[in-house]
C-alpha cells in the first residue's frame, strides 16, 4: 500500500466512486411493513434469512399504510420501494389503479400452496392473518374485565377511556356487534342506510369515552400507562406486550380478522429480487418462525402445524378463537371506504 502513488490512489478512488454510483442505480431491495414489534419479528424471520441466503442487502422501513407515497412514486416514475405489506382493500384498490405489479404465482410456489384467501386479487400474496381483539390490563381490572363488545361499551361497570382505531373500518363493525348484531350478519346490516345509522347511534353512546389510536403500537402503550381502561388492539401487539411481562388479557369473542399481503410496486427495478423475497417469506418454516415470534396466523397450508404448540392457541385462526369471529369484508370496504370514512370523520369531529 505504501508503494502506491497518489495518482493510482485517485484513479482507484474514482473507479470505486463510479462503481458505487452504478450500484446505487441498481439499489438494494427495499421492503416496507408496519413497524414496531411486528417488523422486528419479520426482521428475524424473513429479512435476515433473505440476506444470508442471497448475500444481498435488504432495507426495511416502516409506514402507516399511506398509499400516497406509492402513488407519487409510480406517477413520477422514481420507484424507491419494492415490496410493501398492505391491508386487503388498499391492496386491491392500488392494484386496480395500476400501482402494483400483477403476481405471477408460478414464481412463488403456486396458488395451491396457500390458503384460498391468500390469493388477494391480481396483485397480492397473503402473508399473515391478523386480528383486532379486545384487550385490558389484568393488573388494573382483575381477570373478569370486559368479555365482548357489549362489555366494551359498558362505561358504568368499567369507567374510563377506551381506544378504537380511527377508521370507519373495524369501528362500525364493533359498534354493531356491541349492539347485538351477530358476527355473520354485520355486513348485511352495514350495507343498509339504517344499519350505518344504527352503528353511529351506538358509537354516540361512548363517544366522549373514546381515545382513537392510529398506529398499532399505541394501544399497548396506553393500556400500560393507564390512559385507557380497555382497548381494541392487534392481537400480536398484545401478545408481544405479554411476552415483555405485561399482564394483558386478550378477548377473542367478536374478533375481527383479515389478511395482509405482500405487493410489488409497479415499476420496481428489483422485481426478481422481490419475487425471491416473497417466495422465501411464504415458505412454511419461515412463516412458522414468524408466528412463533408474534402470533399472527400464517398463510401457507403447511405452516400452522409447524408452529409451536403454545403459539397455536394464540393464532386468530385457531378454532377456539374463531367462535363469533368476523372476517373483514374486503369488497364491502373497497366500495364504501370513501363515503363511510367521510361520514365517520364528520361524526368524530363534532
Amino acid at each position, binding site marked *: 500500500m505504501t508503494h502506491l502513488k497518489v495518482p493510482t490512489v485517485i484513479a482507484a478512488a474514482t473507479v470505486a466512486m463510479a462503481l458505487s454510483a452504478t450500484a446505487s442505480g441498481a439499489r438494494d431491495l427495499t421492503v416496507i411493513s408496519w413497524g414496531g414489534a411486528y417488523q422486528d419479528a419479520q426482521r428475524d424471520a424473513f429479512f435476515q434469512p433473505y440476506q444470508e441466503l442471497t448475500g444481498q442487502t435488504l432495507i426495511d422501513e416502516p409506514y402507516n*399504510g*399511506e*398509499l*400516497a407515497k406509492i*402513488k407519487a412514486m409510480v406517477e413520477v416514475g422514481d420507484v424507491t420501494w419494492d415490496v410493501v405489506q398492505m391491508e386487503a382493500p388498499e391492496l386491491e*384498490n392500488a*392494484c*386496480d*389503479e*395500476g400501482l402494483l405489479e400483477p403476481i405471477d404465482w408460478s414464481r412463488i410456489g403456486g396458488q395451491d400452496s396457500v390458503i384460498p384467501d391468500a390469493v388477494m386479487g391480481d396483485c397480492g400474496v397473503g402473508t399473515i392473518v391478523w386480528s383486532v381483539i379486545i384487550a385490558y390490563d389484568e393488573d388494573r381490572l382483575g381477570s373478569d374485565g370486559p368479555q365482548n363488545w357489549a362489555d366494551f361499551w359498558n362505561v358504568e361497570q368499567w369507567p374510563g377511556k377506551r381506544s378504537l382505531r*380511527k377508521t370507519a373500518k373495524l369501528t362500525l363493525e364493533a359498534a354493531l356487534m356491541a349492539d347485538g348484531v351477530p358476527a355473520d350478519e354485520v355486513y348485511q346490516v352495514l350495507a343498509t342506510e339504517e344499519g350505518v345509522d344504527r352503528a*353511529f347511534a351506538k358509537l354516540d353512546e361512548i363517544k366522549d369515552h373514546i*381515545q*382513537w389510536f392510529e398506529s398499532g403500537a399505541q394501544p399497548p402503550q396506553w393500556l400500560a*400507562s*393507564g*390512559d385507557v381502561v380497555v382497548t381494541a388492539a392487534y392481537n400480536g401487539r398484545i401478545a408481544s406486550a405479554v411476552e415483555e411481562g405485561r399482564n394483558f388479557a386478550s378477548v377473542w369473542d367478536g374478533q375481527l380478522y383479515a389478511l395482509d399481503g405482500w405487493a410489488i410496486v409497479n415499476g420496481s427495478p428489483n422485481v426478481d429480487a422481490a419475487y425471491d423475497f416473497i417466495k422465501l417469506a411464504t415458505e412454511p418454516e419461515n412463516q412458522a418462525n414468524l408466528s412463533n415470534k408474534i402470533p399472527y396466523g400464517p398463510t401457507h397450508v403447511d405452516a400452522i402445524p409447524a408452529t409451536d404448540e403454545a403459539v397455536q392457541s394464540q393464532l386468530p385462526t385457531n378454532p377456539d378463537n374463531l367462535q363469533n369471529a368476523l372476517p373483514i369484508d374486503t*369488497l364491502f370496504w*373497497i*366500495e*364504501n*371506504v*370513501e*363515503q363511510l*370514512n*367521510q*361520514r365517520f*370523520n*364528520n*361524526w*368524530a*369531529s*363534532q
Partner: protein
Amino acid sequence: MQSSTYSTEPELRSGNISGLRRDFAAAERRQKTGSLLLLLPLLLFTIVFFATPITGLLFRAVHSPEYASFFPNSTEHLQSSGSFNERFYETLFLDIRSSDEARTSGRVARRLNQDQSGFITMVKRAVRASRSAPEDITSYQSWFLDLDDRWGEPDYQNAIRRAVPKFTDFYLLATLDMKRGETGGFEKSPENQAIFVNVILRTLWISFSVTMICVLLGYPVAWTMANASKKWRNILLLGVLFSFWTSLLVRTAAWVIVLQKEGPVNNALQTLGLIDAPLQLVFNRFGVYVALTHILLPFLIFPLYSVMVGIPKDLMRAAKSLGARPVRAFFSIYVPQTFPGLSAGAILVFVLSIGYYITPALVGGPKDQMLSYFIAFYTNNTINWGLAAALALNLLVVTLVLYSLYQYIIRDKRLRLGGDDV
C-alpha cells in the same frame, strides 16, 4: 439615481437635453439590470419552489381527466348526444374492454366512486364479465343492466355525467359541502357528509384564539425585555430563543408528557388536593391551545420587541410631565407606537396557525383537527388528491381574503405589511 444625475451634469451645462435623456435612460437601464440580476436567485426560487407547485395544486383541484382519458368512446358519445341510450352502452362496453387491457379501469372506477359509491363493484363486475362476453351482443344496454340495475339509475348516470368533463368543480364544491344536483344546480351535501364548512370555521376560531392568547402573554414579555437592563434582557432573550430553537416535535411531544393523565401537572394538582381525579388536559382543545401558543409565541414576541426597543423612553416621560397618569400615558402614547410590531406579530401567528398541522394532530382530539389535518388525510390515506388540492386552495383563499380584509381595516400605511414608504 442620484449618481446618474451627477454624471450627466456637464452635459446639462452644455444644454444637450436629448443626450442627457439618453444617458439618463441608459444609466437607469444599467441599474435596473443590475438589481434584476441580484433579484434573480430569489425570483427563480419563488418560481420553481412556490409558484409552480401552487399552480400545479390549483390545477389538481379542478382537473379530473380520468374518465375522459381512459373511457374516450363513451365520453365522445356523451359529449355529442348526451343521452344514455343503446349507443352509450355500446361505447361504454368498448371502453371497459380497452381499459381492462391497459389496467386503467380502476382509476375511472375510483373517480366515479368518489361521487357515488357503488361504482367500484359495478366496473369490476363489468370488466370481469366483458372478458367472457359473447361476440354478438344484441343489446349492450340489457347486458349492463343484467349485470347491475344501477347502470340504469339516474343517480349513477348523473355521476357519470359529472365525471366526463376534464375540468370540474366537483372537488371545490365538496369543500364547501355542496354538489351539483341532477339539473346542474348547486345543492347542499347530505348532512352526515357535510364536514368542511365546520372545519374551516373551527380552523379560523382556533387561530384567532391562539393569536389573542399570544398577544396577552407576549406583550408583557416583550415590554419587560425592551425595558430591562442589558443583563436581564439577554437572559430573557435566551429564554425565548431557547424554546424557539428546540425542535417542534420535541416541544409538542413534551406537552403530551406534561399534560397526560399521570403527568406532572395532574400529579401536582392532585398532591395539592386541588382535584380528586386527573383532568383531561391533552387530546382536547385545551391541549391544542397550550401547545400552539407555546410554539407560536416567539413569532409574536420578536417583532414586538424589535419595535419596542426603538421607542424613545422620553415620550412616556413627556406625557407624564404634561400631566398624564401612567396608565393613560401607557395606553395613549406607548401602545399606539407598538402597533406596527404588534400587527406584524399577530398576523404572523394567525397565518402560521391557520395552516398548522403537526401540533393539533398530536395533541388534539378528533374535534380539534384543523383544515391541514384533512388535507393530509385525503393526500395520504384515501389518495383523493383532487379533494386535498381543493381543500388546500380553500385554505389559501381564506388566508388571502383575511389578509386583504386586514389591509382594508388597517388603513394607516405605517401599519401595513409591505405597505409603501414607511
